[in-house]
């Protein structure tokens, strides 16, 4: 469904991503793991059209989308939950969700998406008339995911869902993502929390200093010496 080939990207004179290639198949839940500053978020932003790639190709369903503007990428069915969430803090929860369905013209489809999001996160239904800026951290995360789902994406990109959340809340968010994936949604996830992520995803890539150093099934990666040493060592 998504194929990234030899992607180079960065900011100013600083190259952050060096020739990354990765692939996400229909219905998969794939994670991009790695330490801070490895280029995970930049990769995701390139796919979503928020950062212009320097080199390489990004193909979605066979069509090249590299360098396409973010609003157009969204229109093709790629939803992004960014690291900073980018919620509209001066709007209510309801309005934020409505904005998520900005490019969905059918009212009926919007209503069904809304019902779905509220059933996934009942908490949001309770907070419906509240300003997004006044929500708690966990609720914001749910709202951001909900907003991305409102557009009815076929591929969901999620940047650091565990960031800033307590373990219990993280688990709730992870459960929701797992459930979405089980329902057939394709998800590409960026995470630093390696243990919890590997328990949930199908496949993963490990990114270090802008390059992919390991890839494989979650099972295979959990058993890899490198992952054990570098990421699981402290906890195991």
């Amino acid at each position, binding site marked *: 469904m998504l194929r990234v080939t030899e992607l180079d990207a960065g900011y100013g004179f600083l190259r952050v991503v060096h020739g990354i290639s990765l692939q996400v198949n229909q219905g998969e839940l794939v994670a991009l793991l790695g330490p801070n500053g490895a280029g995970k978020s930049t990769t995701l932003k390139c796919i979503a059209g*928020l950062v212009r790639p320097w080199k390489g190709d990004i193909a979605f369903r066979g069509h090249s989308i590299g360098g396409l503007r973010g*609003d157009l990428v969204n229109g093709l069915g790629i*939803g992004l939950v960014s690291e900073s969430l*980018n919620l*509209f*803090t001066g709007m209510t929860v309801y309005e934020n969700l409505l*904005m998520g369905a*900005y490019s969905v013209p059918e009212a009926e489809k919007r209503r069904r998406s809304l019902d779905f999001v509220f059933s996934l996160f009942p908490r949001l239904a309770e907070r419906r*008339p509240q300003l997004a800026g006044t929500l708690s951290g966990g609720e914001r995360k749910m709202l951001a995911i909900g907003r991305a789902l409102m557009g009815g994406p076929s591929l969901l990109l999620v940047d650091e869902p565990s960031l800033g959340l307590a373990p219990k809340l993280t688990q709730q968010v992870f459960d929701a993502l797992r459930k979405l994936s089980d329902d057939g949604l394709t998800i590409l996830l960026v995470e630093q929390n390696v243990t919890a992520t590997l328990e949930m995803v199908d496949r993963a890539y490990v990114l270090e200093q802008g390059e992919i150093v390991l890839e494989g099934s979650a099972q295979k990666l959990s058993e890899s010496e490198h992952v054990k040493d570098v990421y699981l060592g402290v906890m195991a």
Partner: protein
Amino acid sequence: MSLAVQRLSREFRSPVTTGLIAGVLALAIFGVVRGGTFILVDSLVTGAIWALVAAGLALTFGVMGVPNFAQGEFFMVGTLSGYLVYTALSGVQGRPYVPFVTILMALVVGFVLGALVDLAVFSQMRRRIREGWVMNTFVVTVGISVVMINAHQLIWGTDYKGIVAYFDGPPIHVLGVSVALDRVFAISVAAVSIAGLWWLLSYSRIGRAIRAVSQDEPGALMVGINVGRMRTLTFAISSGLAALAGATLLFQFPSFPFVGVKPLYVAWTVVILAGLGNVGGAVVAGFIIALLEANTGFFIGSAWEDVVPFALIVLILAVRPTGLFGRAVRSVWEQ
């Protein structure tokens, strides 16, 4: 509605704001008791128009980060196109629909011109400028203002191009003050436009998208909003509103190259008082400034109308740097 209540209650929590509001009320009462009710009526009429011009200015800053020094020139464009249309329709003058056609045409001219300016200037700058966006665009709007003023002089000359009145019926009486029909027309147009703008921004899909761009640009992009188009639209709306105000006040402000200077000053005073980028606050502040002007004009002398508000605003700013309604617009104005 609950949103408005939330917002209001948040804004009134500050004692400084409450004090200022009390001060304004005191000023209004003082004006009415010592001067007369006409101060209140005058303030309402001019305040409504200033609110219209200032709301556009606030919108442009909030959504695009452009502190528009050329806002007054779009007012000038409104007076000019109003004059040209009205005189072109001289054959059918006296028909009640003529003033409405006139101001609608001015609105369209301002809107189109604003869209063109955004496409020709700001869209180009956005591709190039990496830092100092706010100050750079400010200087560019200074250039736009110079060009528009002198283009007017070049093509239409410096003489006053005005009309006596849109309507020649007898004045109506409000609170013991006689108000000319044109002024009633002006306040009605302003009220309808402000209500329209409020509805547009609050409830329409486009308006929500505009607010989304002002609140979080990458977020807007992420939900599929064409951010560039929203910015163009914003500048066009704001220019259109200024032009509409100009055409509506043609009876009071005959068109000439520098007619935009006064509205520009007032709009900026209003917007600074309200806090840059705060559209709702700009409407309220529009009335406050008009009240201040009416009081100054009556009690101190009309020559001081321009001096007292400016001095007062700077003092208010010294106490509250983010304006009367203290919305933190830091991210935008701290460059």
